């Protein structure tokens, strides 16, 4: 706002990367240590991927999802089979991006989309664990954890979505002025961010 940055794909990539990195660090060093009831924590990275995909479409969504998932697979305390989060976040990023193209811009739809994406991601991650025979993802654990985690995801989603929209807003504005084919997502995005700002 004070100094409008150059509207460039590089700028957008940088912003996306920063959003993912910051979310991931917040996830492992803050969110995962919160003593919430039930001992389950919201998945902020998943929410950020969903929000990015809704803003920027399926291509950005899936690439960002894949890279965020890969980072979540190798960030220090991670101890699961490498590639599980990459697979899940990539798929969710693609699906949410594809859904955003047809999405109605009514006031609550984006938030429902985020909640749906978070639910799908959580369930899918648990499913990959069960397919691989991970002893941590037994049915008894999954059935008690997943509903609670979905609830926390939904509760945390407005804040994450708002923050992501806030950060990406400047770049989308700059691109809109160029009047290229990105005008449509930018308009959609502006509609969303306007609402997000009123939260």
């Amino acid at each position: 706002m004070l100094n409008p940055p150059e509207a460039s794909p590089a700028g957008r990539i940088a912003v996306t990367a920063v959003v993912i990195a910051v979310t991931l660090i917040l996830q492992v060093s803050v969110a995962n240590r919160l003593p919430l009831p039930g001992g389950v924590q919201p998945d902020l990275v998943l929410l950020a991927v969903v929000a990015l995909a809704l803003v920027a479409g399926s291509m950005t969504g899936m690439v960002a999802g894949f890279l965020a998932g890969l980072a979540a697979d190798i960030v220090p305390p991670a101890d699961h089979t490498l590639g599980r989060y990459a697979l899940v976040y990539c798929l969710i990023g693609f699906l949410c991006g594809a859904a955003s193209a047809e999405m109605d811009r009514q006031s609550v739809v984006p938030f429902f989309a985020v909640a749906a994406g978070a639910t799908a991601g959580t369930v899918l991650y648990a499913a990959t664990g069960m397919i691989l025979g991970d002893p941590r993802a037994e049915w008894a654990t999954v059935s008690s954890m997943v509903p609670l985690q979905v609830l926390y995801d939904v509760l945390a989603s407005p804040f994450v979505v708002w923050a992501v929209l806030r950060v990406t807003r400047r770049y989308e504005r700059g691109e809109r002025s160029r009047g290229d084919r990105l005008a449509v997502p930018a308009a959609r995005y502006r509609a969303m961010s306007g609402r997000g700002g009123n939260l």
Partner: protein
Amino acid sequence: MKDTRRTRMVLGGLLVVALMMITVDYRGGANSPLRGLRDFGATVFGPVERVSASIVRPVGNTLGAITDAPGERRRADQLERQNQRLREQLRSAHLDKDRSAQLERLLGTAGMGGYKVHAAQVISAGQGFEDTVTIDVGSSSGIKPDMTVMSADGLVGRVTRVGPATSTVLLATDQTSSIGSRLEDSKEIGITQGRGRRGIGRGGDTPLRFQLLDAAAPIHVGQRIVTLGSQGQRPYVPGLPIGVVERIEKPTGGLTRTAYIRPFVRFTSLDVVAVVVAPPKTDPRDAVLPPKPSPTATPSPSTSPKASGSPKARPRGSKSPTTNPTPGE
């Protein structure tokens, strides 16, 4: 417009890469060829996590102070009383030269049953279903995989992966962790398995499960268990307190009985821990266990001062000075 051919090709490519990584890593197990990728992750993210932990710690402490307020009040009372006792001990030690020498020896042998430790701080925790944490010491501090991690209360877990400045700890509550353990005051051994600290109902108060190898061995509620010690003292050193038997499942046709354990360590709010870098020379047996909550073993030898520090360690300590006393909380 969004769902073009190119998008689908990229999606397909990324999914194939992810599936390939899963396959390679799953089949490789501990010696997976993708280990380098994780090392890279530890090198890149480890320092960032350290920095972020130092930034967010005051926030977490504030939150913790609010949620823990009742417990902390009790703890403050406890510490105050303990302080009083220690002061009395100190005064009597000043008066009695012989006693003072003995106290010194006790303090010398205290050191948590002879474990040599390296203190560390928890800086981040695992996501999803895994009970893992990162601590802020790594190979540059001499940490190696398969070292035991403890806190002042007892066993925390073991080191699984070591980065330059951070290491990953698998908590005892993780569902892939199993620890050889022993009932106090007996030779009965068994296996303690994690049940996961997360999830309602399952974890809760008893995130550990203890299975006796001998189905006929006596076990009752309130007994404490300690680590048995692994071969070569790795990954688990002997004698570390694990927890208290909370309830025992009636055998329903099974060959082993299962007891559910309430751990001494609070796994949801780990902060300062210690990595055991050198195991004790001799098995401390039950010496590291905290004093029994029931005042059955009240110390009343005529020589002891009015209020004695730890009811369990003192009488033994005065009889045989080589026994390790209970360390202070």
